[in-house]
């Protein structure tokens, strides 16, 4: 099968800092590709460029054979891209359920006048989105919190809410930036399983995650970044044996353990 999303020589600099430089890779439908690397390696910046939040300084993003470099995130959403955020981007002014419903924006939104007058079409679309959102909340185990204000949820629950919201778009490619951060072992396991299921349904998944056990377990392919550059890639076994990776990544991991 051909690549669903490919990234070609992508790069960006922030005031002289080469945050990402000349990074290329591609993902196929159903594949889980993990991007790993020490703190500040450029993983989130890479995601931001792919999802149109940042304009890449150089290189290309190709989605289903079409150049979508620097395209607006909402237009990318139309084309089947969806993502979560490392530093939670929850609609704090809404309930948990409304957050999930907001994920159905593309299928839910219609005509302003139908909404103002609450015409049957508007109500019908809203009802469908409501049902879909409830199913997703059940899937991530948040159905009991549906009517709570999103702002009052714990960090781990908000992470799952973001995943539910991202899944609501029925994406073809899903970017997950540290979905298991701040989650306990059980929650991590659940998220792990969910990601595998989503991939099995044919979604291409880009994953950034610091939990190495999780990464090694579920990734088909791993790209290693350090100081903005790709220093290695391959299947989990290859990457974990790579001396450059061990030096760059595992070295800092040991340092982090010492910090903690």
């Amino acid at each position, binding site marked *: 099968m051909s690549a669903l999303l490919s990234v070609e020589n992508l790069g960006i600099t922030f005031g002289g800092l080469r945050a990402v430089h000349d990074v290329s890779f591609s993902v196929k439908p159903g594949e889980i590709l993990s991007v790993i690397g020490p703190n500040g390696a450029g993983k989130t910046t890479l995601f931001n460029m792919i999802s149109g939040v940042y304009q890449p300084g150089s290189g290309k993003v190709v989605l289903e054979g079409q150049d979508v470099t620097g395209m607006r*995130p*909402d237009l990318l959403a139309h084309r089947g891209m969806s993502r979560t955020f490392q530093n939670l*981007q*929850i609609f*704090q*002014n*809404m309930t948990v359920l409304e957050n999930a419903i907001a994920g159905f924006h593309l299928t839910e939104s219609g005509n302003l006048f139908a909404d103002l007058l609450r015409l049957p079409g508007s109500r019908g679309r*809203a009802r469908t989105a409501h049902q879909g959102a409830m199913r997703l909340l059940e899937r991530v185990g948040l159905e009991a919190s549906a009517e709570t204000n999103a702002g009052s949820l714990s960090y781990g629950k908000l992470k799952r809410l973001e995943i539910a919201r991202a899944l609501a778009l029925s994406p073809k490619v899903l970017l997950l930036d540290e979905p298991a951060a701040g989650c306990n072992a059980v929650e991590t396991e659940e998220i792990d399983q969910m990601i595998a299921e989503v991939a099995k349904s044919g979604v291409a998944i880009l994953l950034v995650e610091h939990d190495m056990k999780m990464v090694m377990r579920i990734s088909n392919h791993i790209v290693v970044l350090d100081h903005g550059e790709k220093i290695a890639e391959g299947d989990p076994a290859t990457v974990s044996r790579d001396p450059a990776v061990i030096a760059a990544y595992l070295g800092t991991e040991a340092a982090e353990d010492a910090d903690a």
Partner: protein
Amino acid sequence: MRLSHKTATLLVLIPLIVLAPIFFPSNFYYRVGSLIFINGLAVTGMVILIGYAGQISLGHAGFAGIGAYSCALMPVHWGIPPVAAAVLGAVISALLAWLVGRPILRLKGYYLAVATLGFGILVYMVLTNETWLTGGPDGMSVNDSGLRDMAEAVGIDLKNSQFWYWMCAIVLVIGVWLAMNLQDSPTGRALRAVHGSEVAARTVGVDVARYKLQAFVISAVYASVAGSMVALQNEFVTPDVAGYMHSIEWVTMTVLGGAGSVLGAIFGAAILTTLPQVLTAFAEYEQLLLGLIMMLVMIFMRDGLLPSIMRRIRGKDE
């Protein structure tokens, strides 16, 4: 079954409107009532802009000016009946909001505040300076809308102040009904998503610029209709209807009452419309007290009066 937000809001608002006149000692109170409803209408529009979409405008009285002067000018120059002129005025306000909003809404926070303030002042200056058309600072009279005669023809014979109390109430309730429909609709959710997190709204597919513009245009229509109501009721307009103090008052009412809720904002409108009448007893201290009350509310009730009071009531229940 839980009441929907909309039902709850209307169930509070309508009985209050209908029962309030029982306590009116004189016709003057009908006049204050209609003033509250007109401000309430403008402020309901501001809730859509501020509370739903999270944007600010310090220039919406400009649209009220357009609504008001449409009612004054169109009947004289084009022979359009005043009520139809109000509708046309709303259309013109919508178009203007659309034109002005496109460049302005790229701005955020205080930049947006200053730019909208500039727009409001611009409208005010035009209404004041184009004396040949608007009569300048002295204002101009507005033809009788004929609405009261029509009511009389179907057997509803009310004093002028009473008639406008009910007219403004009806328009307000329609405005509130629309705003509440919007809140819990796909568009309303998109607007509130923009408020909650622009970047997240984008990634779920919300065209942020388009939705901000929608909120701006809708709120401009509310302000325009409010301005038209002022003109039709008073049968006279001055540029003051577009004065930036009104814009600021509306934002204050919205935030003071509780920007997120229509009922809260109307509550804010009611308080800030009646308080000056009450405080006249304190003569020269009136403005001082008003300012002090506003400061205290914001310091101690950051979410606005109504949400804070509701929370306190609920808190005691639990």
